[in-house]
């Protein structure tokens, strides 16, 4: 089924149907603005509310109350006049707010007065030895299968890493009857002290009680090894064992499935390709866009909401979506903004939703050895470039991620740096004694997702377009 956008121009185009995008599109449409929501997935929800309208997991308590909140957001969106297209991959966005989107193998072009990017987050790369072996996946991947297809691990399964998602996933797998043999917690001991000054805000946030009860639920059923300082996967063409060091002792265990997780980072590709300025965030160890209090970026007309604006979690994403949409309404149709919750109210909501975040960021700040690999460990999964390859290139003159492309093709495979970019930046920064900010990031360009030449060639073109590329 192919469903092209109904119009060529919209007041607001929202990209991504996760918590921020759902809230932004509903708010914008409710205020009477022509609104288009484009999303790459089969249905609404993004990652946190994945398959919210279709999940085969019918026993609601297994996914938890926080998941089902997503159903209300989808209902609000459906009650609005927003046009929604799924399986729509946006591959270009520029400073003129022209958008190219691939739907069912054909590209369509729309123009927006305002764009709200709600492209969310992806899991931080976890470049350990053997992380490309079949049988090694992200924790988020397992959660995606659990939510959308009620699939759970049933072989020997190890979950390794740190962060709230890891515990949530473990609890959900156990509730659905899946198997977990061991959890390897890589949280650095020193982080507990570093996080202490921020503990009060966290203790008084809703995360605290929920997190604690989830950890208790999991620890009652699964062996948890804390203080893991080294981690490696091995096998011949298929994961066979996991080796780790905890408390100075090495242990190797046979395993069929290893699920890795060390937090999430903004998915920056579309925003960066549009020219949105990003800065290195020293606490969250990732690139975050430079935004004003309403989510407006350095490119006029483009706002960013949700985790793509800096990791804040689902509750904050919803509020950021509403704030960005209200700002769009104020800019385009001020009179109708009165219908919406006041900006001051939304900002109070946001402060509440972000409460405790600094504590989580500090406690679950991933350790250097799990972010900056060495030796034969693969950095760039697509082009199969190792840490040693990167360092050798630095030794003969590669100065940053963009020069490195010419040496090793890092970031030039189909994932376009999504799985190696942060690693390359930090690895090169360390090797050259510079800050990640000074080293920089890949220069990203459209198409931000691969499309076929046939699809490009089929794009309607006028005489001027042909003249621009044909000689003579």
């Amino acid at each position, binding site marked *: 089924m192919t469903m092209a956008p109904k119009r060529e121009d919209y007041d607001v185009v929202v990209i991504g149907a996760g918590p921020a995008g759902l809230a932004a599109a509903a708010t914008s449409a409710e205020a009477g603005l022509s609104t288009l929501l484009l999303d790459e997935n089969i249905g609404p929800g993004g990652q946190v509310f994945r398959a919210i309208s279709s999940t085969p997991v019918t026993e609601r308590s297994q996914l938890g109350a926080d998941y089902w909140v997503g159903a209300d957001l989808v209902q609000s969106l459906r009650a609005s006049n927003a046009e929604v297209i799924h399986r729509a991959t946006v591959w270009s966005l520029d400073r003129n707010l022209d958008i190219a989107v691939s739907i069912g193998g054909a590209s369509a072009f729309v123009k927006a007065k305002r764009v709200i990017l709600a492209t969310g987050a992806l899991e931080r790369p976890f470049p350990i030895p053997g992380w*490309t072996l079949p049988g090694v996946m992200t924790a988020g991947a397992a959660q995606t299968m659990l939510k959308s*297809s009620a*699939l*759970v691990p049933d072989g020997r399964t190890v979950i390794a890493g740190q962060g709230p998602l890891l515990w949530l996933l473990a609890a959900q797998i156990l509730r659905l009857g899946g198997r977990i043999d061991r959890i390897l917690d890589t949280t650095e001991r020193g982080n507990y002290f570093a996080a202490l000054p921020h503990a009060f805000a966290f203790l008084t946030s809703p995360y605290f009680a929920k997190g604690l009860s989830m950890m208790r639920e999991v620890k009652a059923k699964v062996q948890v090894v804390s203080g893991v300082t080294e981690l490696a996967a091995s096998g011949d063409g*298929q994961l066979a064992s996991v080796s780790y060091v905890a408390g100075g002792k090495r242990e190797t265990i046979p395993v069929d499935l290893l699920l890795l997780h060390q937090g999430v980072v903004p998915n920056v590709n579309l925003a960066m390709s549009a020219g949105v300025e990003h800065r290195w965030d020293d606490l969250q160890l990732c690139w975050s866009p430079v935004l004003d209090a309403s989510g407006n970026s350095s490119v006029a007309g483009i706002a960013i909401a949700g985790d793509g604006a800096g990791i804040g979690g689902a509750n904050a994403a919803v509020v950021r979506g509403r704030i960005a949409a209200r700002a769009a309404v104020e800019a385009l149709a001020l009179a109708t903004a009165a219908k919406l919750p006041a900006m001051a109210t939304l900002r109070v909501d946001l402060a509440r939703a972000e409460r405790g975040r600094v504590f989580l960021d500090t406690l679950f700040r991933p350790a250097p050895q799990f972010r900056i690999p060495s030796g034969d460990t693969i950095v760039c999964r697509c*082009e199969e470039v190792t840490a040693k390859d990167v360092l050798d290139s630095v030794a003969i003159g590669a100065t940053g991620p963009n020069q490195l492309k010419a040496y090793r093709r890092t970031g030039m495979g189909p994932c376009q740096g999504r799985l190696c970019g942060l690693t390359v930046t930090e690895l090169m920064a360390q090797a050259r004694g510079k800050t990640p900010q000074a080293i920089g990031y890949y220069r990203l360009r459209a198409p931000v997702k691969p499309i076929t030449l046939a699809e490009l060639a089929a794009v309607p073109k006028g005489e001027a377009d042909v003249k621009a590329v044909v000689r003579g």
Partner: protein
Amino acid sequence: MFKRSEQDKRPQVQIFVDGVAVAARQGDTVSAALLASRRDVRRSTAVSGAPRLPYCMMGVCFDCLVTIDGVGNRQGCIVPVAEGMQIEIQKGKREIGK
């Protein structure tokens, strides 16, 4: 590696993996159906031929690349299964004409 929860009551959808009939469920992505099939569905990479399986399942890693109904390099994790869909495990680069 993965099993289906008994509460899953979705209707079956028949797909073909390298010509062999496989029972998927309505709403599965191609990658989820492959991982649930208990078959060896490892692709091999274009660069070294190393075996891989899907890693992220959310459209960012491209380790799920697969040939679907004759079109190569599709992201199996964002394409839903359909009755009669023909899936080929991709070995190496996408072939010309596929």
